[in-house]
């Protein structure tokens, strides 16, 4: 490959990247990006929720994954959601439709508490 061809290839690549970036800037793509970034993951490790507090926008889905060798639950203190028992590697998701603060705990090990803040 000659030096000129390399330059042409680089230029072409730059154009492609520019187009992609432009697409990413369009409203529809931006909305997708925003919602996927807004969803949150909470890991259950060593009898604790991590992070203990997650802040998400209205409409976001929070997914909990139990990574302990012991079953846990994710139960809203206000009775809004109840994961039922989640064994090792099992997940639970809940989509928050309204703004507010949602404290929750593990009903099996109630010292385990966490909070979802929906803004």
């Amino acid at each position, binding site marked *: 490959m000659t030096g000129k061809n390399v330059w042409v290839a680089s230029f072409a690549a730059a154009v492609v990247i520019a187009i992609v970036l432009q697409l990413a800037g369009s409203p529809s793509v931006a909305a997708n990006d925003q919602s996927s970034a807004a969803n949150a993951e909470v890991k259950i490790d*060593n009898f604790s929720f991590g992070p203990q507090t997650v802040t998400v926008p209205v409409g976001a889905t929070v997914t909990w994954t139990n990574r*302990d060798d*012991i*079953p846990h639950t994710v139960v809203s*203190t206000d009775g809004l959601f109840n994961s039922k*028992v989640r064994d090792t590697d099992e997940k639970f998701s809940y989509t928050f439709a309204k703004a507010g603060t949602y*404290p929750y705990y593990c009903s*099996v090990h109630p010292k385990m508490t966490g909070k979802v803040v929906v803004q």
Partner: protein
Amino acid sequence: MPNKKQDLIDQKLQDLNNDGVDRRGFLKCMAWAGTGLVWTLSGGIPVSRAFAKNYGKDAGKGGDFSFVQISDSHIGFNKPANPDVTATLETAINKINAMPHKPDFIIHTGDLSQLSKPSEFDTLDQASKGASAKQIYFVPGEHDMLTDNGEQYLQRYGKGTKGTGWYSFDHKGAHFVGLVNVANLKAGGMGSLGHGQLEWLEDDLKGRPASTPIVLFAHIPLWTIYPDWGWGTDDSEQALSYVKRFGSVTVLNGHIHQIMQKVEGKVSFHTAMSTAFPQPAPGTAPSAGPMKVPADQLQRVLGITDVNYVVSGRSLAIVDSPLGA
């Protein structure tokens, strides 16, 4: 018994005697012990031995009767800490059957199952049938009430019980009370007995002579061992206030998968080993999760070190001695 260990016990007793609390004695020992404990009620004073201990000279001496406590079978658990919890439960039952001093009954202090599944309870029932002691008294652990508010447990083991499964019975002059402190747990709290059960307990004990030996058993410890891990019961103080007037009170718990003991006044507290897997000593690990030990040491942490309670003078003394290598 190694002198070091005795020194440590003496030192602990000394430390605790200086804490300004009026106690006959205070014992604390955390040693991996038998998969169950044998209790002998002798003149109202319960004496326990790890059940694998050879009774030898003590066999048949003095005790009016004995029973065995096993705990935390976690049938259904299959993680590395013990891939075959059914086998270790069967080992525990075989050891009970091999005892020269036959226990009148067995008490299981909860977490029969891992996930409250019917198949897990079936397996426990099948293994229990192998026990020569036919009567087994149960209380539920939190693992037995994971679904349907414990309906599955209550249908199988809670016949004739009150509320979420509490009850009492008399045996040869002693009064036994099985309590449930794993139901309706509150966010941020520990174990809980609840108002209804406490009222029932007060009523159950009312009118009984103070000389009646009382045995309370429940899954989560009825004394606060380690709040950070939820190892205690929020309203146990009230329950214990009802037994203060009795001359001999023994409190048997499980949940923490290790032996701990305390004597406060006339009340002796004990927690039992698991038949399934060990858990770490309080605060020595990031969490209370199952503790993995090398496979060739599992039997050792479940069943080899032996703990005896020996009445000596004004306070109890504890001797722990390994049964073998």
